């Protein structure tokens, strides 16, 4: 019997899970059809803040307050809430999953794609740790020779917030958003921000796959075409 093959995004997400597990992260998951609370409010995205324009969201017809999640940060929020409720002060989570944005599709944009999202909290979890973890991850995924840079950015759920850039094959690529969890987010999931701090990050998995293997069109990944199973 000839063995079957796995989709490239599965190979990549399994590898991501292995790398993050070795760094002490527990795999988390959450629903794709999510409440507005876990997708936006808990993450400090205010109702009328222009930041909600930053992602064009699929709202569900006839179900007030339900959305197709725009990031897997919902899984992170749910997991942090779980350990906060259990009275724990530290933990780390990683999740890979499908997310949705209502935008026109082309070679680099899809209405559905995969995101990798993670967070670590504790009494002394620092930005230096965030840098360490992401550097380790990208080295393992893309090769030891990569260079990583944190450039100032803004996401409502973190402060300070960054765009993470990777220099890969002599090109700078924007690969993730990241930062230190905003005190309001820590409060929303049940931590005391004076006692617990931490970092969070999230970015497209498809983009990593496209960069790593030179896949020219994101749409190839979702057409059910076996010709993408090349690895």
């Amino acid at each position, binding site marked *: 019997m000839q063995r079957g093959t796995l989709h490239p995004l599965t190979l990549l997400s399994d590898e991501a899970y292995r790398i993050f597990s070795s760094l002490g992260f527990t795999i988390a998951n959450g629903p*794709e059809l999510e409440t507005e609370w876990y997708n936006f409010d808990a993450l400090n995205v205010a109702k009328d803040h222009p930041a909600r324009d930053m992602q064009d969201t699929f709202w569900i017809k006839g179900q007030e307050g339900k959305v197709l999640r725009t990031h897997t940060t919902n899984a992170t929020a749910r997991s942090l809430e779980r350990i906060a409720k259990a009275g724990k002060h530290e933990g780390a989570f990683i999740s890979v999953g499908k997310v949705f944005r209502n935008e026109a599709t082309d070679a680099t944009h899809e209405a559905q794609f995969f995101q990798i999202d993670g967070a670590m909290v504790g009494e002394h979890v620092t930005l230096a740790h965030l840098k360490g973890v992401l550097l380790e991850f990208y080295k393992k995924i893309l090769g030891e020779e990569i260079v990583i840079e944190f450039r100032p950015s803004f996401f409502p759920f973190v402060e300070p917030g960054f765009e993470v850039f990777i220099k890969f094959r002599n090109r700078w690529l924007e690969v993730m958003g990241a930062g230190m969890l905003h*005190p309001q987010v820590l409060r929303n999931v049940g931590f005391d921000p004076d006692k617990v701090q931490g970092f969070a990050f999230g970015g497209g998995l498809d983009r990593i796959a496209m960069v790593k293997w030179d896949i020219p069109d994101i749409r190839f990944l979702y*057409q059910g075409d076996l010709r993408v199973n090349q690895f």
Partner: protein
Amino acid sequence: MNMIISYNWLKEYVPTLPDAKALADVFMYHLCEVESIQERGGDTIFDLNILPNRAHDLLSHQGIARELAGQLGISFKDPTVLYKTPISKETALSVVLHTKECRRYTARIIRNVKVQPSPQWMATHLQSIGARSINNVVDATNIVLFDCGQPCHAFDAKKLSNESITVRMAKKDEAMTTLDGKAISFLETDMVIADDDGVLAIAGVKGGTKAEVDTNTVDIILEVANFAPVGVRKTARRIGLLTDAAKRFENDLSPDLAIRAMQQLSALIAELCPDAVFEDIVDVYPAPQEYRQVSFSLSRVNTVLGATITSEDVEAILRSYGFIFSRVGESFSVDVPPLRLDLVGEHDMIEEIGRIYGYEKIIPVLPDSKTPVEQNEIVQRIHAARRELVEDGYKEVYTYTFTKKGDIQVAYGAKGKEYIRTNLSEGLRSSYELNRQNAPLLGQREIKLFEIGAVFSTEGNEVINVAYADNDGVVEESLATFTEGMDLSLEDIPVSLSTEKFVPWSVYPFVVRDIAVWSNEADRELLQSIVATFASEHCVRPPELFDSFEKEGRISIAYRFVFQAQDKTLTDDEVNTTMQTLYNAIVQSGAFEIR
């Protein structure tokens, strides 16, 4: 939020600015993304993507200049001391606010202005950032807007019913035509500026034609106000007028800025119209902005950033930004400048210090986690299901969540993708059909596929299903059912990720040709080598040996070849010609007979 910045304009505030190239790095590593840099007419134009938390104060040349001065430790030329305060006399202008949505309204009458083309420097400033020069009065309001970030407006005083301005919510069925000729009908949730007869302007968005300044205007009323963000945003979006003014108000401006802008605008008009007669500023400001202090400790800065910043570093940063602060040991208390609405708590100061100090100086450290990693049962089940299917020869595909039909509909979905799937089977059936047609390309007799993913229904909400397809059809089960009794504890075998590159496929049709050859046992390898060489030169995949049998001491061997061009549809003739070279090679070897 994009802001177009002229290098020459900036330089008026920070004369010792480094060159444009060096500036780009300062922006990128300490402030915001630079979307583009263009050399234009002896100037360099930056398109900056200002972050939402700094849209209060950085959608302006002064704001950017102040930021750069702090970042680079160079001097900032404070413009306010340069403003000539025009002598003014008492005014009868009345301003009444009927809504809290207007947080401050400053206005002043200026009589005897002369409306004419702007001086060259003003026209150049506006043109450099892509704005149009209209006349000196209108241009002055725009210069102040792009200079300090405060929207300003000028009305022709004689066109008002009397010298009295009201800020109120619109009445039902009220209407107005904007300066650019757009007819607007209002809702009662829209805030407007009005005289006794009707609407003069949409508050914070756009002026109307009624009191438009033109070349015959002699008396003007300047408006420099502060409107609450949410209302302006809703109105601007509803009527589709995202003006430069609306963009700034919707990001929340400090009311403190209004009076400074009024002084700047007045000084500019005094310079442009030496004969103008100024009346006193009317300033209605019911609930003045409260001034804040923010405290932070150095140890907290270092605990969050994982850095070793010293008190001296912090002091140097605060000083170069002109912050007024006090320090007791490692505790700092900062008087927040009124325009810095983003600085509210300690975490904001940690970001401020980190950003200015430089994130590149923070050394990566791997965390030393003591918490054991927990198992995730859903992921274990997914892995178990995959393992089983792959071992049975099934190949994994991903298909679309969006479908034409389903139970749950998304708002504003693309046509034919308005619903989310209730099952995986339909997507998998299309996938099966696609791959079955491509079977020769894939070198596959039998197509065996699977997908694992979430499906959605009104009753079940969201469930993870497993579906697999083969010659016998499609089977779909819930993940729980499919993995019942499976060993979930099996570790995945780590595979190292391929370092090969993806090979894109041609969008043109492929053509299949078969050949059958009589051979002797001894010459099989020679034949194999001829067809392999041929296929590597002309085909998209290696030859497939699809049939072989023995008869009367000879072997019949049949191969299949797949042809496909990257750039065109191959014709029969082209493929026949190519196949002929194979026939020739086989015949010339003398060992075979083509059946």
